[in-house]
Each structure stands twice: as C-alpha cells, then as structure tokens.
C-alpha cells in the first residue's frame, strides 16, 4: 500500500466558517469542579506556606529531603521520617521567558514576559526543585545557577497556596 493511492479523510475548515454559519457548531462550557483532599503531606505544605515557611520531608534511608513533601519515599518504598524546614532561597535550575498565557493567548502589550523557572530549594536535597516564577529581574539578567529568594505575600493575604510566594527574586549577596 502507498498512502498516495488513497483518498484520505479529514476535511479542513476555517474558524470563520462557523461564524459565517457555513458549518453548524455548538458551544459548551463544562462545569467540572473539584475539591481535592490535600491529605497529610500537601495539607501541611500549604499550611506552612501560609505561615511563610517552605517545608520538605526527609527519608532517612536514602537521605533525600523531598519537596513537595510526601509521606512515602517513592524510591525506597517506605514512609518518610521527618519534616524539614527549608530556607526560602534557592538556585535556578532552568528558566524560560514566556510571552503567552496559559490558554495560548499572548500577554498584553507592555506586560512584562512571565519568567517560569525550576528552583532548587535550599535545605532540600540537591536537584529537588519546584516550579515557580521569577520577579524583580530583567529577563536578560536571569542565569541558570542564579541564587534567588522568595518574595511572600503579606501574612494577612496568604491563603495556604503556592501563590503565597509571589515570586522568587535574585538574592543579594
């Protein structure tokens, strides 16, 4: 068989064809809502963020201090042993300079690009990072390996969320 010898399915249409009524279409906004149980590890993680702390969980067998915390060590297959207070500083493991929003729309004119990064948190094991965003820094000044520090919301505004940290900014030496 050769693909070239077949009439292939798949009929392209332009988005405009829907607006013009050339094709029938139906809009739907689903209501799929959840309240996910935080459980032990993430519940405590969020509660500590509200207090302005970043915590991790340690496995005494492999010695890894894991963030986000978990009640089990997925590598040693045993319960983790203790809570560990991390610092609110870390090191950029990788980053991006992003001009699009979550839904692929473009950021507004004049809006600064988003700076998502993986940040290895001080006090957790090397390589243990979380995804967050960078602030108070020009995109061209961001470097892999750069030391950063969390900028927190005011205590009264915190709600037990990863966004209680507004962003990470370059740490002053």
């Amino acid at each position: 068989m050769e693909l070239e010898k077949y009439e292939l399915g798949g009929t392209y249409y332009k988005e405009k064809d829907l607006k013009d009524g050339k094709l029938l279409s139906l809009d739907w906004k689903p209501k799929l809502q959840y309240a996910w149980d935080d459980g032990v590890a993430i519940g405590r993680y969020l509660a500590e963020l509200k207090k302005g702390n970043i915590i991790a969980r340690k496995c005494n067998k492999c010695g890894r201090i894991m963030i986000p915390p978990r009640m089990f060590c997925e590598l040693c297959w045993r319960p983790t042993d203790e809570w560990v207070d991390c610092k609110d500083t870390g090191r950029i493991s990788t980053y991006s300079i992003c001009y699009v929003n979550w839904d692929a729309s473009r950021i507004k004119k004049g809006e600064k690009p988003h700076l998502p990064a993986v940040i290895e948190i001080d006090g957790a094991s090397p390589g243990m990072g979380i995804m967050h965003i960078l602030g108070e820094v020009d995109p061209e000044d961001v470097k892999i390996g750069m030391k950063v520090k969390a900028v927190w919301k005011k205590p009264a505004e915190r709600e037990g969320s990863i966004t209680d940290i507004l962003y990470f900014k370059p740490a002053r030496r």
Partner: protein
Amino acid sequence: MLEKVAIAGLGFTEFNSVSPGSSYRELTYEAAVKAYEEVGIEPKDVDSFVCTSEDFLEGYSISDEYCNDQLGAVLKSGQTIPGDFIHSLSVGVMHILTGLFDIVVVQALSKASNMKTIPEMVNFAFDPVLTRPLDITSYFTAGLEMNRYLAEERATREQCAAVVVKNKANALINPVAAYGADVTIEQVVDSEPIAEPVRLLDIAPYADGAVVLVLCSEKTAGSLTEKPVWIKGVGWSTDAPSLESRDWTEGIATRLAGDMAYKMAGITCPAKDIDVAEVNDEISFKELQHLEALRLFDEGDAGKATEDGKTALGGMLPVNPSGGGLGMGHLFECSGAAKVVELVQQLRGEAGPRQVPDACIGLAQAWRGIPSTSAAVAVLSAD
C-alpha cells in the same frame, strides 16, 4: 489452553463516603503497602504496573501522570487504562500471558467525594450535539432502562427493591462497607423519586477507596503466597455508545464479556459452576439484568430468585455478599476492584461472617456506569 495467572497479594482501604484525611496519592499508597507486604515484595520486584484512571474523575488531564509514585513505580513499565479495574486486571493477565512479565501490579482508586459536580460530569459524557444540550440530569438513562425492564415484565418493582434490601444488609456485616443499612422494600419503593421508576435508594451512593492487587505467573505463585486465587477467565465488551442505537434491555456488553470469560475459563454452565457472584448494582435493577446477561439466571427469573432469597447469603447463589455498590458505594473506575476484593476473600475462605461455604469459583462483573455501555468480567477460582 492459556497459562494460569494468580492473584497473590491483595491490598485495599476502607470504602468510605468521604476520605478527607488522605490525598489520592496517600490513599493508593495505603492499599499498595498492604498488597506488597502481604506477599513480601517491593516495587523493584514488580515487572509492570497497570493503573486505572479516567481524566475527569480525577480532575486531571493525562491523569496517568499521577498514578505511579504512590505505587513505587518510578522508572518502571507503567500503563493506564481508562476503564474499570477489571479491564486493567485483564491487561495484567495479558502481560503475564506474554511470558515477559512475571509479577504485575494492578491498581484503582476512587475519590468520588472530591468531585463537586458529578451530574454535570456525567452529562459531559453524552453526545455533545444530540443529547447533552437537552440538559437532563444523569440518571435519566437508568430511568428509561428500568422502565423498559419493568414494562417487559422481567421483574417487579418490589423485586428490584429486594436487591437493595439484600445488599445493604450484606454491607452491615462487611467492616469496610460504607452504606450498610437495614431497610425494607417499602422504604426503597417510597424513597425520593429521582428519575422514576428510579428512586433514591435504588441508586448506589458514591464512595472513596483504593485497591491494589499483585498478580503473578503460575510458576511464581508458590513463592509469594500459600493461598493463590486463580484468574481463570477474563472478558470485556462494549455496545454501541449512542443512545440511538445501543441495546436497552439485555445488558449486551455484559453478556458478551461474560461469554468471553466463560470460554477462557472452560465454563459451560455458569448457573451451575459459579458459587458466588459480585455483579454491578449501581442501580437496583441492574443487578438483576446483569445476572441474566451473565446466564446465571434465565431471562426474567433473577427478580423472583432475589425475592425468594436465592441470591442472599446462604442462598443457592449468593450475589454481592460484600454489599455491592448499593452497600459499599459506587466507586467509579474502582467499582470492579471492590468486587474482586470480595471474591478473593471469599475464595481464600477469609470472608468472615459473609463467607459463602465451599466457595470455589467466583465471578466479578463491572459495568462502567452511566452512560457507558462497557462491561468487564473476571472468573476467579480457588484451585
């Protein structure tokens, strides 16, 4: 003749109406620890993992991402089935039958209590153009099907209610069941109408829980357990998904899945050979319809048999001794898992007050629930 596959290890949590103390990860971890410890293995001993997960039930896209850590399945062969646990169990069987996998772990989880808009979600499963815009709350398909079942005089309204009475009573003596109760036929028949003839007590209420099983090949079974339960046959099938062209009376997918499993298990007379059955009872009458589809009773006989106590504990063919969905709760993709859990306990002789004497061959059946037309069946044996 295909090689035999064993269920060696069994781990499960309680099935509760809510489970706020544990995240979905922690709930699965609890079941996995129990299953692995029972057979003395660690994840490194496992050759492959089969998880059960359906995106919108978990509230994730690509929900298989979040299945493996809590099983210790990091950098292992893991796959996910958006189906019932018994579908996943069947995949686990296929893994072992290839001869390339010796120990396989199968998992399912329900966090039904975390879903705030279940009727909206079920409506989201209907055809987006033909059915969904009618905006009819989800139990209407069950109402239609039960109406037809009654109209064809396959059972009486009271016989359907008798299923509820039996299953909730069985759940009272099942320590992990959430919805045990001592109800009467009148209470069921007079309960709040939802989509008549379906009433509130006809419906299996939602529940949370997790199940992990350890499967292995025949040659390995002896080293893992003294009480292997053998998977003799598995089967699965799907009817047309469209309301317009699907079957509305026979439970045809269950019939075909059952026939496939019976053939694999070498069972020619199911009504005689099966000692105990755990079948889907998400809506009261479905238990009767499924028993008939599985050839455990002739068409139109299951209702009478239930009324006469033949499917009760101590009856000729105990059905849903666990309490079923009506007594344990509707666990979505974990529903079939709860049924397999009960059978494994029955066939090991560990079912306590629910023990069916001399239970040797058991059948578990799952239907994927409204509005699905998919079913899966497993035939298990003590020897």
